[in-house]
């Protein structure tokens, strides 16, 4: 993406504001778009992502629903069948599971079952990941469950600029999109140019070029990997950081291209390593780059444990040190 110029269309936004502005844009440009979820009206959502939208677009378009996630997604499917484009807010990652049945058995499959006649343009926004000191069920990374399900697209924004564009692109998509928002980056600010030309929704992006080792991340871990890359640069090692942005589809081509240059790959996510996105990246890149790899693909991720109590979450979450440790191990292989 071209760097934002200091024009009248550009301003500082937190990720929350960027999402809010993006949602507002979609509500304005398509009367069929509606937002539904718990506490999204007067409260503006527990993270204030929908702040002010009900006031401006009315209770028919910004709908405080009963407290029932299966109900929210199930009725969103019905609304989509009636020609609407529902954007669903799930309050926290751990509360998507009452809706899991509707998402996996209904939402994901209806297009195929109807031989393409039915389209379900539904976005399910989920604040995900840890690092905010929350109680249980408020820090989870359920992306693999969804990416494993054919029929769902899964994306995650890592910064305000992407948040602004990706939410609009997801709403415009005719497929269901699981939209994962890294809650601990909600308050990160950046200059967002609302007149820029966005990158495609389903492509990755090299967020820092480098030749020593490719580091792949998405969502909350992109910032962590950039910090790691900055630290590595001080020691004279340039890491190439790729923000996947989309987890389904997954932009293997870009990763392959990078790995063919660097010969090293580390994949980082908060979700447990076991059977996670990193496992898929490792397998595919190993198939494609076997003779270019100078070390096995290494993963840095969460453990095969429940997300721990917040007082020890820093020991669970991948951090700069764990990323650099993996890079060191890869380079020393």
């Amino acid at each position, binding site marked *: 993406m071209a760097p934002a110029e200091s024009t009248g269309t550009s301003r500082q936004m937190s990720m929350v504001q960027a999402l809010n502005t993006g949602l507002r844009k979609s509500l304005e440009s398509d009367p069929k778009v509606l937002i539904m979820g*718990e*506490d999204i*009206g*007067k*409260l*503006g959502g*527990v993270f204030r992502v929908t702040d002010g939208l009900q006031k401006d677009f009315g*209770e*028919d378009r910004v*709908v*405080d*629903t*009963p*407290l*029932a996630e*299966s*109900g929210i997604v199930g009725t969103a499917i019905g609304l989509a069948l009636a020609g609407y484009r529902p954007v669903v807010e799930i309050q926290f990652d*751990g*509360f998507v*599971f*009452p809706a899991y049945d509707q998402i996996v058995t209904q939402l994901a499959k209806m297009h195929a079952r109807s031989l393409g006649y039915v389209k379900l343009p539904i976005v399910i926004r989920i604040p995900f990941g840890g690092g905010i*000191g*929350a*109680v*249980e*069920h408020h820090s989870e990374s359920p992306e693999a469950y969804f990416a494993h399900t054919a029929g769902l697209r899964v994306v995650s924004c890592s910064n305000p600029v992407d948040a602004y564009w990706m939410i609009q692109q997801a709403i415009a998509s005719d497929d269901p999109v699981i939209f994962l928002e890294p809650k601990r980056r909600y308050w990160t600010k950046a200059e967002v140019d609302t007149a820029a030309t966005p990158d495609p929704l389903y492509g990755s992006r090299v967020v820092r070029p480098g030749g020593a080792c490719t580091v792949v991340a998405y969502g909350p871990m992109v910032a962590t990997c950039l910090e790691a890359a900055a630290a590595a640069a001080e020691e004279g090692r340039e890491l190439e950081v790729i923000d996947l942005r989309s987890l389904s589809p997954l932009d293997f081509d870009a990763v392959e291209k990078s790995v063919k240059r660097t010969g090293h790959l580390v994949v980082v996510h908060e979700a447990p390593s*076991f059977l996670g996105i990193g496992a898929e990246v490792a397998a595919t890149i190993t198939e494609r780059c076997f003779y270019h790899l100078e070390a096995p693909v290494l993963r840095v991720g969460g*453990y*095969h*444990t*429940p997300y*721990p*109590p*917040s*007082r*020890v*979450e820093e*020991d*669970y979450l991948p951090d*700069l*040190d*764990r990323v*650099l*440790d993996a890079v*060191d191990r890869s380079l020393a292989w």
Partner: protein
Amino acid sequence: MAVDSTDGTLFPPDSGAGPELIQLLTPEGERVEHPDYSIDLSDDEYLGLYRDLVLVRRFDAEATALQRQGELGLWASLLGQEAAQIGSGRALSPNDYVFPTYREHGVAWCRGVDPLNLLGMFRGVNHGGWDPRENNFQLYTIVIGAQTLHGVGYAMGVQRDGSDGAVVTYFGDGASSQGDVNEAFTFAAVFNAPVVFFCQNNQWAISEPTERQMKVPLYRRAAGFGFPGVRVDGNDVLACLAVTRAALARARRGEGPMLIEAFTYRMGAHTTSDDPTRYRSNAELEEWRLKDPIERLKSYLHKQGIGTPEFFAALEAESEELGKRVRNGVRTMPDPDPVSMFAHVYADSHTLVDRERAEFEAYHASFVDAGEDGH
């Protein structure tokens, strides 16, 4: 849109003041009789209830303060709901089993759960961490409504054992929308499970008023599932006690489930993370303040001359003592050893967890070896 989806008159404005409201003690502290529910307490029993109410409010205030001081990550206050919890909690027998939400601190108190045990998860040192079997008090459940099914299942077990226990499962007005809760009603009804559904209708589910969850008064839903439902004044500890006792007795007699809607009010924020000024009026709060559950019992005690000055002074001292114990207990509550996150993932050893634990330990040991600047 042709049809207004947000018709304001969801059901006749429900102030809770209708004749269905079971009350034994008015907000002014007058004892009143009810045709179906009565209670006869000794002076000591009245004072016992009063003590419970005062102490759980103190505990709750202390926890809120500790959150403000950064000692807890979060707190879900029970302020305003003390009578619903103490009344129902004191109706329980030792063999009964409780399935709480995350706000049942008063019920936990009645079960003899150490208040400090409740604070671990709010401090972030565990996800519950007590043995539910010790006090027949299940772990707090954050996922809305899930515990109601567990309560019904437990009651089905009790039924098969032929024991004299019964179950109370707690939930909120918001939770009543969840599929799980409605499935719990169905299971309880068709299996005639000895379970009491105790719903604290505190008028709010975070920012959503009850009108977002229901079109008829909550207690009436039970009829559709095939068991009785009643509405009790949730700020009246005597009525909550009497009605829960009756519901438990019914369950024990094999007459099946019952729904109790305790009509009350969440006087505080949803949790310490919440800002209720965004969605509700001060006037509403002031109206409910006049119905305070502790004040009404206090004024009854005064009018009846129950309780000596020594009793009230001793209670004040006990309350201070509890506050101190909670403060000190929380401040000295140790953080868990990080490696403990690998414990209890499974009942038996699991090779993946074992391997990751070993890697975790080796990784952290490398810091010690490398000193400050190793990574």
